[in-house]
């Protein structure tokens, strides 16, 4: 089996296996395990893993400031710097905040994504031409996915709060704005799944990307797809007793867990996949979420030209001053008529 298929199928089989485990588990007497023990365990692993990884990161020395070539660094007063230079190559904390905000909220690095392609070109003697063109689809897929996921997560707060806060109800209203189908279709759910399918298709159809994609890249995609699809199926097709679901969810966050009877197995599939996502999060590429705040080429003011930064891992270097050198070779230098500082 070739490289791509192995990584693709292992991840797919893992997610399908998780679905089967939860489905079978919910049919047996193990509902307390899947409804209470696993969620608490997942939350514990998530927080513990997050703190562990952040401590690890905090102990790594911070590298030198990296001014980016995308913007003109602050220099002689007559060299022009526009707003985009200041944002891309910030010299003050204010513009640094601007750069970080653009990166975190608008995915600026992805927006600058280029694609390098050989395009057919009859005018060229070789019949093709190498072009680097601005490729925004990845940015669009990524930002659609992330914001849809955020809305979906916030919307789920209606199961974990009582009374449900006004902003959450408002968000839900906006999300179901078009009021088609019963229950009303949430736009965020549709966008989430469509964006995920795009991100998955992108990995599979682009040969270079497929070559570097590992099981760890496919697994989160399949897992979140599984969560999205099970959630959508639960809302629109295999309906469950939603009051009992909220009772279980509230029980979890009020620390008085209960497992009401009569919740369909699809709920446990959904919940179990979410738990796996939480437990998997700190040990995977998903840590880019806290990691983006610590990107060294983004989160430091590029002030190397006027502030001295000492490399934290500099070691003492043994060097020979010129006079020591001359002392060692003076006779040979005089013999070869090389001028010396001291004659003897």
């Amino acid at each position, binding site marked *: 089996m070739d490289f791509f298929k192995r990584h693709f199928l292992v991840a797919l089989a893992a997610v399908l296996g998780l679905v089967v485990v939860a489905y079978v588990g919910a049919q047996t007497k193990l509902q307390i395990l899947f409804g209470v023990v696993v969620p608490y365990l997942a939350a514990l692993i998530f927080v513990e893993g997050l703190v562990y990884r952040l401590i690890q990161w905090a*102990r790594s*020395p911070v590298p030198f400031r990296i001014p980016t070539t995308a913007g003109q660094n602050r220099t002689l007063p007559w060299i022009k710097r526009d707003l985009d230079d200041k944002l891309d190559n910030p010299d003050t904390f204010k513009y640094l905040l601007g750069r970080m905000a653009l990166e975190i909220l608008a995915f600026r690095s992805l927006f600058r994504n280029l694609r390098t392609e050989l395009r057919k070109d009859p005018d060229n003697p070789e019949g093709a031409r190498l072009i680097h063109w601005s490729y925004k689809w990845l940015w669009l897929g990524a930002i659609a996915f992330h914001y849809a996921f955020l809305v979906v997560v916030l919307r789920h707060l209606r199961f974990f709060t*009582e009374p449900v806060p006004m902003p959450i109800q408002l968000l839900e209203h906006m999300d179901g704005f078009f009021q088609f189908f019963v*229950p009303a279709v949430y736009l965020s759910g549709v966008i989430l799944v469509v964006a995920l399918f795009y991100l998955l298709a992108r990995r599979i159809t682009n040969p270079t990307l497929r070559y570097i994609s590992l099981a760890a890249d496919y697994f989160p995609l399949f897992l979140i797809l599984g969560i999205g699809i099970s959630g959508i199926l639960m809302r629109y097709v295999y309906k469950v*007793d*939603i009051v009992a679901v909220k009772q279980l969810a509230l029980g979890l*966050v*009020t620390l008085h867990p209960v497992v009401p009877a009569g919740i369909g197995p699809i709920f446990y599939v959904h919940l179990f996949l979410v738990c796996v996502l939480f437990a998997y999060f700190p040990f995977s590429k998903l840590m880019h979420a806290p990691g983006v705040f610590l990107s060294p080429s983004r989160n430091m003011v590029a002030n190397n030209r006027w502030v001295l930064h000492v490399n*934290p891992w500099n070691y003492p270097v043994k060097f020979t001053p010129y006079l020591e050198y001359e002392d060692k070779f003076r006779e040979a230098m005089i013999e070869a008529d090389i001028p010396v500082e001291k004659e003897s």
Partner: protein
Amino acid sequence: MDDKYKNEFGAFAPRPQVEKKFYDGKYILAGLIIFLAMVALPFLPNVGKTIPPPERQLDTPVIKKIAEKDRKCIMPTEWMRANHMQMLVDWRDNVVRSDEKGAPEVREFVSPDGRKFLASLTNTCLDCHSNKEKFCDQCHNYVAVVPNCFGCHLQEGKKLAEAK
């Protein structure tokens, strides 16, 4: 051996001694605390409380009149809890939007045990469950669902129809 930095060309420098400490630890800690606080914020007011789910009240005058053993809904309770909204919308679509909307049979609903009902929220459902606040609203509020049934099907609307 260990104090030399090695690459494929051999040892070329002493291993760099990195000080064991937190670099920008206070910012990372602050970020972590802010994140955990934001996550915990919506749940904090209810921690430790026991919040009972809403109790569906079935003590309306019409239900009380029915003999104990005959008190059953048009569909099994478990099914109704999950699917009542779909059934009501199907009824609406049959009556208002289907091709045979005037025909008497589209207004007829036959339950699995063979009983026949008029397919109507106001006349059938709300006849027994006349306590909308205690039967419909409290669960809808509990899970923050806003059905648009009651924009038209008000209790007052039914009384008006009876008066005519």
